[in-house]
């Protein structure tokens, strides 16, 4: 038979019959074949996509790479470029000092892992990404830790100096910060810092302190601004944080209760006390809904209209004690607590 005698039908042909059938009309083997063929298709697409992405990456790499890659091996690295989200860029020599690249080092000879470890050894650096850009550029991108408090410590053989403490408890020297900024941070005390080589081990419990300070700064900055010292001395034993203010008074926070309500109570108490012109020595916010205020001096109730406060009788003065409630309407026999 001569094969050129056969032609595809021009009119309605059996080829016009749609061939796809629904899976339910297939046998088990047919469905299995369908799944297999679908899988094969997906795998093929994935492989092709992978090859395409790989090709693109290679293209990008080649684009960054100079034409004669072997020649760049001899080009010494220029000054590393620093990108940071913090203050390290304020010290232009910090990066070179930290990396301590040998003279005439080439990109090919750099051990990025080692350099990265050097950067991370600086507590201020949280993450570091080092990129070689041929022919001779080393790009360093870092993210920095944010300090939440200061601590006075002494490194071996040196004078006591101020260090910064991050939210995760890491203690670092603090490079590039302005003094005005640092002065807004409270001090931590008393604190025993454990040494770790040339530095210190992270301070435990800083998480709760960070939360308190963060909430205070956000919700009541006028109160936070008066905080000078944050004590962790009773954090582990009583779960309480003592905050000493600029006036020398102490505010006691519970580390297990909601800071927001405690700060709100403090704010309200401060308003009341200020209105009454009273000076407190200690406010304890760690008693749940009760706020205990210890006064510096006895309170003299405000005289009714027409009467002078100086007209208070000695008997009244005697009746007043340093532990009287500092605000609100209460009798002298009442407890020294007040619900807000």
């Amino acid at each position: 038979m001569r094969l050129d005698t056969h032609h595809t039908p021009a009119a309605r042909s059996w080829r016009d019959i749609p061939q796809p059938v629904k899976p339910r009309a297939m046998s088990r083997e047919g469905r299995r074949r369908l799944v297999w063929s679908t899988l094969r298709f997906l795998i093929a697409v994935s492989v092709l996509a992978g090859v395409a992405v790989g090709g693109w990456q290679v293209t990008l790499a080649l684009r960054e790479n100079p034409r004669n890659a072997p020649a760049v091996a001899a080009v010494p690295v220029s000054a590393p470029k620093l990108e940071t989200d913090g203050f390290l860029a304020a010290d232009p020599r910090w990066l070179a000092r930290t990396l301590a690249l040998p003279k005439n080092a080439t990109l090919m000879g750099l051990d990025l892992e080692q350099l990265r470890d050097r950067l991370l050894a600086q507590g201020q650096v949280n993450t570091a990404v080092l990129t070689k850009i041929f022919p001779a550029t080393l790009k360093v991108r870092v993210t920095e830790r944010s300090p939440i408090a200061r601590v006075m410590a002494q490194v071996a053989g040196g004078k006591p100096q101020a260090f910064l403490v991050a939210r995760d408890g890491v203690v670092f020297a603090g490079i590039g910060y302005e003094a005005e900024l640092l002065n807004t941070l409270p001090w931590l005390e008393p604190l025993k810092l454990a040494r770790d080589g040339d530095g210190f081990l992270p301070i435990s419990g800083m998480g709760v302190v960070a939360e308190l300070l963060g909430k205070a700064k956000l919700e009541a900055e006028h109160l936070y601004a008066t905080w000078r010292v944050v004590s962790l001395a009773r954090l582990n034993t009583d779960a309480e944080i003592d905050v000493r203010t600029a006036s020398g008074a102490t505010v006691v926070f519970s580390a297990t209760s909601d800071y927001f309500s405690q700060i709100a109570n403090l704010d309200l108490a401060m308003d009341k006390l200020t209105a009454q012109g009273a000076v407190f020595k200690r406010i304890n916010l760690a008693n749940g809904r009760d706020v205990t205020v210890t006064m510096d001096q006895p309170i003299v109730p405000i005289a009714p209209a027409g009467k002078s406060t100086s007209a208070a009788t000695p008997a009244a003065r005697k009746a007043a004690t340093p532990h009287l409630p500092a605000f609100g309407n209460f009798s002298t026999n009442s407890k020294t607590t007040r619900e807000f």
Partner: protein
Amino acid sequence: MSSKPTFIGAVEIGTSKVTALIGEYNGRELAIIGRGECASRGVIKGAVVDYKAASDCTHSALELAERDAGERIELVFLAQTGGHLEGFYNEAAVNVKSADNMIDRDDIRTVCDLAKSKELPAGRMVVHNIRRPFRVDGRLVPTSPENLVGQKLEVGYWNVHGQEQRLADNIHVIRGFNLEVRELVLAGLASGHMITTAEERQNGVLAVDIGAGTTDFVLYRDGVAHTTGVVPVGGTHLTNDLSLGLRLTEGQAEKLKLRHGRAILQARDKTEKVWLDGNFAIGDRQFPRYAIEQITSARTWELLEVVKKKLGHAFSADTCQAGVVLTGGTAKLPGIAECAAQVFGVPAHLGEAPAWVAENLREPGYHTALGLLYYGVSAQGEKSAPSRRKAGFLHSVSRLFATS
């Protein structure tokens, strides 16, 4: 074409059995590497009447073939038979356009399109357009008429068409195995191609494939299929007549037909009897051999007469010099070649697969599936081959097929 092999399946969904063969085609050669068979269910006279049953047995055959080959098929060439298949002849003529009367490709394309453009009734679909040789000013041109000089170019097509639903049913059975049906081939064309030689086809030969439910026939003239047809009568009708005539079950009648049936009456002694089983078991009975032969021969004669009648004027002893070649399961009936010779008045013989076919595939039951593979591969090569580069490797496949 790449040298990566393609694994092609050839499936014949017959009335008595489903046959699947797997061929490994590397773009140059085709090797048969697997086969599977399953008793057919849900198929009557070549038409699928029970989708689930037909699917199950077809898929079983395909699974067996795949297991035998150790490979997965990617596409299938499917044999098509059944009484719904019909054919008609349509021809067209065009005047050659060019001033120098040289026939160009546009002339050929135009006349071919015209000859194929006959509209079919609703619900009918073309299965094959088989072109007959071109004629230039009445002169027969066995090859392409391109660049020949003449005024009038004529061509005729034998168009085979079938019922859309029947075609779709068969295709969907294969699709249920998640395989693409790449070619739908008339079963008679496939088997006819295996049992006739190019020389026989050139001289004129009638190939008759007598299956269980249908009889497919192809009349070749001038090297191409001239007329095709399907008669919805086959070996099961002989069995059925025996069953009715001798009051037997279908199974018993089939057994008698295979053992004692003949296409030509040979028994002289009307009293000679044959045992049903021959094992002297209880229930074994005797039947007159004469009656058995009389029934089977009469039915066979009648069947071949129907074929001859359907061929009509297309068939004559002059135009069919190579005679009749018989194949199919029923062609194993003794004396059938003699019967065919008497009916058609030309020499007849049983068809045999070419010498290169492996011994285990030489049975008449594989002729259609084998033909499907080679026919399908050749047709694929024909479709994908650039028309101006016929001498390429695809053409060598065609030549391999043509000379087989």
